[in-house]
């Protein structure tokens, strides 16, 4: 396997700070890897725990959540509520087996184009080092075993995740 693993990273970014920061990174022509798919949300406070799970379910190898620095929230305290949530959800995900190497949180302001580019570079390398997130793939073997037990052929899980995998190195 000579080909390098290109991780898929989903980033939930707030529209007021990090999205603008990512924009600045682009207009400033900072180079960062194309592995990140940005999903713009009004505020990090909008990022429900199920968004993060859904991203992993849908084939993400890593997830980033990023928004305004404390004190800068467009809605005063959305990011502070979000911070509390991450404090706990991050621990819970670790406890069920999705470790810190696949999950990142950051504050990136509209002025921090450089920081955004660096962040994405670092995160991409970190997730690359962690390798493909195959947790759901392993899960589908359990599903197949269960389905076979009940006398069923064919796919036990929806095929979309694994199709995504097939197209990749």
């Amino acid at each position, binding site marked *: 396997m000579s080909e390098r693993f290109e991780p898929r990273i989903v980033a939930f970014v707030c529209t007021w700070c990090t999205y603008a920061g990512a924009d600045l990174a682009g207009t400033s022509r900072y180079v960062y890897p194309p592995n990140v798919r940005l999903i713009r949300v009004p505020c990090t406070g909008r990022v429900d725990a199920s968004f993060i799970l859904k991203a992993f379910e849908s084939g993400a190898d890593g997830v980033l959540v990023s928004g305004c620095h404390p004190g800068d929230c467009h809605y005063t305290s959305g990011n502070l509520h979000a911070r509390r949530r991450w404090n706990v959800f991050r621990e819970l995900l670790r406890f069920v087996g999705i470790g810190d190497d696949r999950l990142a949180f950051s504050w990136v302001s509209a002025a921090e184009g450089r920081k955004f580019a660096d962040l994405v570079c670092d995160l991409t390398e970190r997730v690359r080092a962690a390798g493909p997130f195959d947790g759901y793939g392993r899960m589908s073997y359990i599903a197949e075993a269960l389905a076979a037990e009940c*006398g*069923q052929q064919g796919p036990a899980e*929806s*095929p979309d995740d694994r199709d995504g995998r097939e197209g990749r190195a």
Partner: protein
Amino acid sequence: MTPLTLKIDRLGDLLAKMAAAGFRIVAPVASAESDTSATAPRPRQAVRFAVVGPQDYARVDLTATPAAEGIKRFFLPQSEAVVRMRQNEGQSAQVSDISPDAPPTIIFGARPCDAAALPVLDRVFSWDSDDRSWSHRRQQTLVITIACQSSDAACFCTSIGGAPDSTAGSDALLVPQDDGTMQVRLVGERGEKLRQFFDADDAGSAAPREDATTGDSGKAGQVTVVPPRFDISGVRSWIENNFDDKLWDQAALACLGCGACTYGCPTCHCFDLVDEGTEQSSLRRRNWDSCQFRNFTEHASGHNPRPWQTQRYRQRIAHKFAYFPERFGTTLCTGCGRCVRVCPAGVSLLEIVGRIAAKGKIEEGRADG
């Protein structure tokens, strides 16, 4: 015909013989879950039916009455993909059939109350049109039951017309004998397929028992006695005539509206069809569903024919003891008592149907008088 016996210490040999003949074996095994459970294990819950290989034969546990999880899922899987759909960009959508593919299977050690549910469900799955998945798994699967040697306070098969040594739904029934052997009763043509696995009873002690009837009064061997809990005769008519009785409110008050009873029930068969996946690639799955869930009947408009737990609880009881009998001529319950055992709130169908039976009796009496 020569009576057949099974020496229970030869169980491993029997299972191996069946496996060698090409059958997959499903049997009740003690699960290891109690190791991981944070609370003390509830012993009864640890026995479940699972596919077993030679390494598992020693774990086969024939003592649970009945097992925490029954055999329903081997005929009606909890979740089953039935259609695969694909639609690629710029191409038209395609659907493909996913057919059931159960290997020839012997379920060994089921309880008569679990097996009795099979012919009951045959009625709904074969009326008007045949349900392919159900029929296929029924065809592929032989069921060997064991007459119960023990029962508990939740057991009420005899009140439903069943018995701890009923052969309904079984292809063979094993009846434990005082000498530690099991007498084998083969049932019907399908049962004959099992003859090859059992030894002829050389001693010829027991007379051949060809009767496939239920509730055999002269109980052979060590079959337990399940005392009658209620007289079912007035139940259906009481339910039909007392749709708005306050008994339903009282009975349902403690009900928390989970699906534990329906999922454990050998006769509950309601299901959902859902698509999972994306527009490009998805599976249509058939999943167990429960009439106890609020959204079971809820329309997208928000209208719900059964918005209250009282109505949903009544539906469950009425479906089992009035609607299904009216439609299909048999009660949708085998008296296994699993719903009573699993209910987190201690709601007892046995108790409630008992109350209905008592009321029905009184009404019947009035009608006669």
